[in-house]
């Protein structure tokens, strides 16, 4: 390997050029965020609502792609925003506020997924003793030319979150690693696998459309 990071590894600067909020913000946006954050810390609800509004679209995307249910997405985001509000005093600004918020949302979503997998799943009596594997093989799904959303949904949640944070939101590896609470190397390996599977899905999908 010439470089452990590789040419594709995004730095904060590169992401900033793309205008991605999660990875690098414009100075005026940062000023607004800092101002709102200061007001929110004093208990100003409206400032806090505006503050989360700066990141809401990206957080909705993350929560929805992880939970795959709009109601659960909203429930998770409310819970995460409430946690963030309660914990503002513990945020010291050593990481970006957006990354901190992403990590809270990610944690809440993963908690919900864990609760979901430990019980509460609908099943019939007849099926109860013969449950299918809940996670279809990503490659198989992609090969069946399902669309990107379906292929994304077939990835394990941690891999899904990684590709969303880095490729969709433009986070650099270091920030994504902080959000996901894993080493940078893990981000790289998850990303590598996820990209491969998703590209395969895209190309298969494209070929399918070309043929039709």
């Amino acid at each position, binding site marked *: 390997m010439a470089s452990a990071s*590789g040419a594709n590894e995004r730095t904060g600067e590169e992401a900033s050029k793309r205008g991605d909020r999660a990875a690098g913000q414009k100075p005026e946006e940062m000023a607004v965020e800092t101002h709102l954050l200061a007001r929110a810390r004093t208990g100003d609800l409206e400032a806090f609502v505006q503050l989360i509004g700066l990141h809401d679209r990206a957080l909705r995307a993350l929560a*929805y792609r992880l939970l795959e249910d709009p109601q659960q997405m909203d429930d998770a985001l409310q819970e995460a925003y*409430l946690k963030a509000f309660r*914990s503002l005093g513990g*945020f010291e600004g050593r990481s970006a506020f957006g990354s901190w918020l992403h990590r*809270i949302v990610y944690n809440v979503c993963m908690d919900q997924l864990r609760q979901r997998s430990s019980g509460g799943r609908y099943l019939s009596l007849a099926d109860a003793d013969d449950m299918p594997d809940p996670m279809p093989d990503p490659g198989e799904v992609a090969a069946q030319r399902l669309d990107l*959303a379906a292929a994304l949904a077939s990835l394990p949640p941690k891999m899904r979150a990684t590709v969303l944070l880095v490729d969709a939101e433009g986070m650099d590896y270091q920030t994504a690693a902080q959000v996901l609470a894993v080493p940078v190397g893990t981000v790289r390996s998850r990303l590598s696998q996820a990209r491969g599977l998703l*590209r395969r899905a*895209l190309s298969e999908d494209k070929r399918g459309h070309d043929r039709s």
Partner: protein
Amino acid sequence: MSGDREHPQRNRAAGERDEILGAALRSLEVPAHRPRFHAELRARLGTAVPEPDTTRPDGPARPDWNPPPRGRARHRLRWTIGLAAAAAVALAAAVAVPLSVNAPASAAAIARHAAATARTGAGLPPFELTEVTTTAPAGFQPEPPPPRVTQHIEYTGPSRWRDESIITEPSREGTQTITQIRNGPLIASVAAGRVTITRAAGRGEVPLAAWQGAALRKLAAAGSAGRCAPSVSLGGNGPLIDGRATLVLRAGPSPCPSADMPQANGPATYWLDKQTLLVLRAVLHGPGNRISQTIRVTYLRYHPTFPASTFRLPKPSPKPAACPPVTSLPDLAALRNALGSPPLIPASLPDRLQVGPIAAQPTSGTGTAGRCKITAFTITYRNPAGHPAVQLYEAPRASPAVRFPGRAVTIRPGLTGTLSAGTGGWAILWWNQDGRYCALQSGGITAGVHLTRVPAAVLIQIAASMRR
């Protein structure tokens, strides 16, 4: 793949591929928030107190508090699961210790053991029990607790029991009955004629924990050793309850008041079965030292004989269909066609308001599997300048939408509503009419739409003109 990155041209190609993938990912549709999301959030934030989290500076916020009830979770099954889960979380810290009640034991150890007994059924013989739990509202809770639950439990062990709960709706719209039967790894839930079978989580909860969230949380806290543990003391022998000797246990106010379950914040008294430590009676006090929850066992028999059919699981209903989140409709005629029954629509609009976007929320029907039907919708009304000003939300009366507390207002003779106003300038007027739940909002953000403000009188005027 890593080999690709070592060649400059391949690196560029890989970078372009990643850009394409990123663009494709960003183009995926993301649902908007549900109607009232921001109003619910504001209400929940209004009850939350920011707390410094100095234990994990700059780390993710996982403060040590129980998740509050979900905003729209006023659903019969979510109630059961949610409250049981809340109790489970609260009790997770309580470590059951072998305890002989005949031997001297500390009040904290008894509290801990009683909480663990209620949660896990550890050490309980088979029993049949009827109890009534009443819960008073204690400040605003997004999911108001049911004011009264009468629970009949037939229990042979943690994995074999039957619980029938008759629940009074929070807004006293009526009662509903939920039956849950646990038989081995499966739990059947029967509500409104619908049977759902789920796999029990781990060892699962015994049904005692389902409706006594505040009482058991308090008991568990009293048995813990943390800084949030209230004082606890034994009050000697209590009266006989249904022939059982009791022990009185008292817990002081919570040093760490909870915003999501304020019923447990004040002092509490428990009357425990001396032999099994089952809670036979409890009185909890909330804010202002008002009684916030009472538990009263009215019937208790140990070692009863149950018919074999008691724990037989019923046949599950078909799975509910997965429905699209929101559907836009072009006009009121399309809305009328889409609904199973005629909607309530304002007959006249004051202040030169005009009908704007109409969005419908399909839900799966309880009958045939695979059918989605539209039962709830929103209509946004624009002011003469074209800005969204008022939004009407209408759903079946039993819908899980949050009922915001507020002051009662007369919409017209024979029809009253509740008007609530938030700090963000929003106002919501909600009421029940002809079996429908209706809410009008002005100001604030709902479903991603910023609403300008109109006087409350305008909302009342619109509500008064609602007709089928």
